[in-house]
């Protein structure tokens, strides 16, 4: 049965191997160079004088732009492709073409027939996704170091071992849909829709709750991201933007400035503590790389064009710090692999459930 599965799987595995080889070639040709540039140019710069590295970092981020997109897209879509092209047709093709009347009258039980196919092609899917992810994760190493945003879904989903879980899940999902909807094209379409839906659901509603996030309280300081903004509507007053928590590679759920009672500073308080903040005219200033919230003006640090003086700033901050603290809710960076492992296990568990269901259904089907 294993040999038969390989016989029927020949073409698909050849296509996959060719594609994987192409990726490996691209990665092998450009990866070392990328790492070299990082080691010799970017890393030393960041160590010596982080603030002045802007252009260097920008240039680095833009290198091999096309390949960056291609590799990321590859890891993103490969699980879905495996579900559509390896999973959905596995049983649906036999049902649609009538060849199940040949396959299920040989001296092999239906269960064994399907179980071996699930096992062999499922393993191949996992290996393919694993190798691809390995290569892409390695290649993106330097770039990910610079961005320090491993928990961001646009990075987390495309690195490490989670693509293996996605691929396995998509494949088994495809097979199950093919057993229930025994025509190939509808099975492929349904598999895609359900897979995308499941990925969205898990990322949005399951992943945040896999572990309880930590909370960290810190003093509000004049550091990048800090700002006082005017609300966009007339009369909506000032609000406080806490500084960036400076937790590289962490997943920040929330970053709010609150007092003992959990209330944010009111507009009146801010206006009295930092009177220079009202009336607009402010701009970014040299200490800020912060985001602006609302479409009001953001006034921050001292600048030549009429920002607060150092004393005014100091007074403002002292007043704020007396009552308010910055509370950051986050997953620390060192939990990255735990999250990778747990999410992969979740998808693997779902795959096992689906596999059991589809073995049960294939017996009932047609009969």
């Amino acid at each position, binding site marked *: 049965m294993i040999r038969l599965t390989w016989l*029927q799987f020949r*073409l698909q595995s050849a296509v996959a191997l060719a594609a994987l080889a192409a990726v490996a070639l691209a990665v092998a040709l450009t990866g070392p160079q990328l790492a070299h540039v990082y080691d010799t140019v970017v890393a030393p710069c960041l160590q010596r004088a982080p603030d002045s590295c802007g252009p260097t970092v920008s240039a680095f981020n833009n290198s091999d732009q096309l390949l960056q997109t291609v590799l990321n897209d590859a890891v993103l879509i490969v699980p879905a492709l495996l579900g559509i092209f390896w999973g959905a047709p596995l049983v649906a093709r036999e049902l649609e073409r009538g060849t199940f*009347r*040949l396959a*299920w*009258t*040989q*001296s092999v039980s239906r269960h064994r027939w399907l179980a071996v196919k699930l096992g062999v092609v499922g393993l191949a899917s996992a290996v393919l996704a694993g190798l691809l992810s390995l290569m892409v994760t390695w290649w993106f190493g330097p770039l990910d170091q610079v961005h320090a945003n491993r928990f961001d879904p646009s990075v987390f989903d495309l690195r490490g071992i989670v693509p293996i879980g996605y691929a396995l899940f998509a494949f088994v999902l495809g097979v199950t849909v093919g057993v229930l909807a025994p025509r190939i094209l509808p099975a492929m379409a349904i598999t895609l829709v359900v897979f995308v839906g499941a990925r969205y659901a898990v990322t949005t509603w399951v992943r945040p709750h896999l572990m309880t996030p930590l909370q960290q309280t810190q003093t509000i300081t004049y550091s990048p991201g800090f700002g006082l903004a005017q609300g966009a509507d007339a009369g909506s007053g000032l609000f406080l933007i806490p500084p960036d928590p400076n937790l590289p590679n962490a997943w920040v759920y929330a970053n709010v400035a609150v007092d003992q009672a959990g209330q944010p500073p009111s507009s009146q308080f801010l206006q009295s503590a930092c009177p220079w903040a009202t009336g607009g005219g402010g701009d970014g200033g040299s200490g800020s790389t912060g985001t602006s919230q609302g479409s009001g003006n953001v006034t921050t640090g001292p600048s030549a064009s009429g920002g607060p003086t150092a004393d005014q700033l100091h007074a403002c901050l002292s007043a704020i710090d007396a009552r308010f603290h910055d509370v950051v809710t986050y997953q620390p960076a060192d939990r990255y692999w735990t999250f990778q492992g747990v999410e992969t296990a979740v998808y693997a568990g779902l795959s096992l459930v689906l596999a059991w269901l589809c073995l049960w259904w294939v017996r009932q089907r047609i009969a």
Partner: protein
Amino acid sequence: MTAVIAAAGLGKRYGRQWALSDCTLAIPAGQVVGLVGPNGAGKTTLLQLAVGLLAPTTGTITVLGEPPAASAAQLGRVGFVAQDTPIYPTLSVGDHLRLGAWLNPSWDQALAARRIQALGLDPRQRAGKLSGGQRAQLALTLAIAKRPELLILDEPVASLDPLARREFLQGLMEVVAEGGMSVVFSTHVIADLERVCDYLVVLVASRVRVAGEIDALLAEHRRLTGPRRDLDTLPPGQHVVEVSHTGRQSTLLVRSAGPILDPAWTVEPVGLEDLVLAYMSQAQGTAQPGPTLREVSR
């Protein structure tokens, strides 16, 4: 004699429609059985129930003493070729033989290779490029080479040209001559029945109309012609299958265990084709076949 296929009250329903109803059969071993009936009569349903591709709605069926597809071993004792001779178009002829060898412990590679060679099939050719006759022969080879005790064929020659049909039957009969195998095949063509089959089952409109060894059926059925008269003047023990009256003459097709003693009737044997046609033209609905009155004006 043990029955290769035994059905009791077997029925299969799709939605509201009964594809097969109240089917009770005991098909003996070691025979070539013809399952005859018009299209849509339920032949494919019965055969697919026998190999476990369908599950019954009512009643039971056992094949070689076990429920169909009860185990891998039982699947190995039954060979099946479905109606459209499914094969994998992208696999070669040789690949199909490998499929047979890998999936069937009782596979006889020498027999398979011999047959393929005798048929002139190229093992490297893709099965999708074969003609209809070649496909049927490949499918038959796959079913035969696992040395089954029972071979079930669903309309194996329906889509074949006369030469391919003849060659298919030649190959099949050769294998039967080698001994031991029972064959059940369905067809809606009556012409080949008498030369190929020992046992006959007539299935019309989801019901079994008549079943039995062909020699016995031919011995028991008679055509009676004589002057026109009422049916109740027949002695008991005669079972009228078909009747037609003209102004002066009555013609009956009758099944009876003993000889017909009434001198007014001219008694003749019935050919197999006429016998099958008579049962096929019977009215639907009754479990016991009854007489059909047909006024034929001449």
